[in-house]
């Protein structure tokens, strides 16, 4: 019995390793990135890399450039200097493949207030060309049972956030970029999301996030990057 335990652990490890070798090397790489906003250098000469299975937490004060960095990493904005690579190919060639493998959730929720939670989910599924599935169960899991067909403008900020984060349960994308995902969420939703992030990392996904809150779960592959506030 005692012998069996390490054995099963090692098979799990080889499973994870096989995922890692299949996507060998860093999946996302930024070299010498710099970003200038309103004549202020937010960061320069910033290099980072992310492999599958890793969680990269970007820290820094308000205005340090965290969101700008995330938008650059998501391909939504251009860095003022530097290069980005997806699976060792420059963004110029690999951007379509990268975007197809990316789920970005920014400050804005992406939730249309006039539509219900179900209709919003249906729209994202269509936009990501996913098959329809049981959205009711997903919304119930997110604590929105009974609110499925209420227009989202009637929901509280935290509930709207939950609708917005539901995308993380829909998407097959392996790379997640989350800008302050815990904003407005209550404790139970925060732990639900962290649990989901942990599962995603164990499945071989990669996550970049910013948050001012302490992560309550233990993420073994956590890398932290501190952006200094510069004048």
């Amino acid at each position, binding site marked *: 019995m005692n012998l069996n335990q390490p054995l099963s652990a090692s098979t799990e490890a080889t499973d994870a390793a096989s995922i890692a070798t299949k996507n060998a090397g860093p999946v996302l790489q930024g070299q010498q990135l710099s970003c200038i906003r309103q004549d202020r250098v937010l960061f320069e000469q910033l290099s980072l890399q992310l492999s599958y299975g890793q969680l990269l937490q970007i820290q820094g004060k308000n205005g340090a450039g965290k969101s700008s960095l995330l*938008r650059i990493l*998501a*391909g*939504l*904005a*251009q860095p003022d200097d530097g290069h980005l690579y997806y699976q060792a190919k420059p963004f110029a060639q690999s*951007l*379509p493949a990268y*975007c*197809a493998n*990316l789920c*970005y959730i*920014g*400050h*804005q*929720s*992406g*939730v*249309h*207030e*006039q*539509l219900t939670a179900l*209709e919003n989910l*249906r*729209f*994202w*599924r*269509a*936009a*990501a*060309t996913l098959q329809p599935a049981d959205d009711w169960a997903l919304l119930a899991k997110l604590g929105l049972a009974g609110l499925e067909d209420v*227009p989202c403008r009637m929901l509280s900020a935290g509930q709207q956030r939950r609708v917005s984060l539901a995308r993380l349960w829909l998407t097959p994308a392996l790379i997640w970029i989350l800008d302050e995902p815990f904003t407005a969420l209550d404790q139970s939703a925060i732990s639900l999301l962290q649990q989901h992030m942990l599962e995603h990392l164990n499945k071989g996904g990669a996550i970049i996030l910013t948050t001012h809150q302490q992560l309550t779960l233990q993420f073994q592959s956590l890398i932290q990057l501190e952006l200094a506030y510069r004048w």
Partner: protein
Amino acid sequence: MVSMVFLQRELRLLARQKADWLNPILFFIIVLSLFPLGIGPEPNMLRIIAPGVIWIAALLSVLLAAERLFKDDYRNGVIEQLVAGRHSLLAFVLAKTFANWLSTGLPLLLLSPVVALLLGLEQAALGAMALTLLLGTPLLSLLSVLGSALTMAADKGGILLALLILPLYIPLLIFASSAIEAASIGLGYQGQLAILLAMLLLALALVPMAVTSALRINVS
């Protein structure tokens, strides 16, 4: 399939925000009903000004609907999501355009018999007006989607939008009103219709691409 879901979404939104499309239609009717009152019910006079007046009212009412086309989706981040996902932006634009035509262009077409009555248009001119509206309103929708996409990030984009797209409406105004005028004095108007059709096809080929680029630029 994707476009159908998007179109359903747009139609659902229109059903929930009725003011967005009812206001332009009412505006069109009100403006046209004021002309006989202001100028006088003299039939010959009305017949002369009718072609221009109808099309000017149509342009302005479409412009009224254009400003808010992308505003909500821009503000709540839907467009950012679509740009980040990179696919289905074109389907989104096409669904928007078609829904805009259904809600502002098509009603003008359906109202054309009423308009003809108000301005004393004859049978032949009514046919010409309906045909120019049929070819012209999709073009109006395409151009207003373009203007709306370019100005969606501007806070008070209304006047900017008008400055941007009214000049693009001018060729349409000239040829459409000239077609109605020709019909009302018994001349052929196939030439004008052909030009309208050419403009529509050109816009149909180029505008969706321009709109997707405009959305991308505004988000980044």
